[in-house]
């Protein structure tokens, strides 16, 4: 949640640049609503069932069985949260798209503890042709 909370800081600067921000996760909408309300987020959290859209971006992967049992032991019940028993996740990533729909920046890391700085994303949007 630290990432979504940090992203809130660039919502207004992005709007000033004519850009929009949306977040996306495989979770059911109710979880997105809880996050958005708790953190007073000014952007949408979209629900991507089965990570099907994330797969078109090359981000989806299946958790190996040993990781499924560890996540389960932490109370991370992906089938319950996501409404899908496939035990897949997306690699976290940030993608900047220009107004013509062309990808202009991609920041992805297989290590889920690494996330791009919101300021770097803002810089990537500033660099887009207006």
């Amino acid at each position: 949640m630290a990432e979504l909370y940090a992203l809130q800081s660039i919502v207004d600067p992005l709007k000033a640049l004519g850009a929009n921000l949306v977040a996306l996760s495989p979770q059911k909408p109710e979880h997105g609503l809880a996050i958005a309300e708790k953190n007073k987020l000014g952007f949408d959290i979209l629900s991507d069932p089965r990570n099907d859209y994330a797969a078109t971006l090359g981000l989806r992967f299946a958790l190996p069985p040993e990781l499924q049992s560890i996540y389960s032991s932490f109370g991370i019940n992906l089938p319950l949260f996501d409404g899908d028993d496939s035990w897949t996740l997306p690699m976290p990533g940030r993608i900047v798209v220009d107004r013509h729909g062309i990808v202009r920046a991609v920041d992805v890391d297989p290590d889920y503890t690494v996330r791009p700085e919101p300021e770097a994303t803002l810089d990537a949007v500033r660099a887009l042709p207006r």
Partner: protein
Amino acid sequence: MTLSAKLDEIRQGAMKKIPADKLAVMTQATQDLRASGIVDKVIKVGAPLPAFSLTNMRGAPVSSADLLARGALVLSVFRGHW
């Protein structure tokens, strides 16, 4: 505080809480994912964003076409609330 500094704090806290055997499996899984070459298959700069039509947290439809009609778009993909 930058996001990466905050994430460092969270990471340090998690490493103290998670038993060593589980942490080893998790670390190995991340290494395996990196070694799988998955990153090479991620969408590239210069490619068109695949269109999407999904629902937001209130169940309202949101499409990439609608968003792009209003300007540039930042898409931030995350795993979950947990």
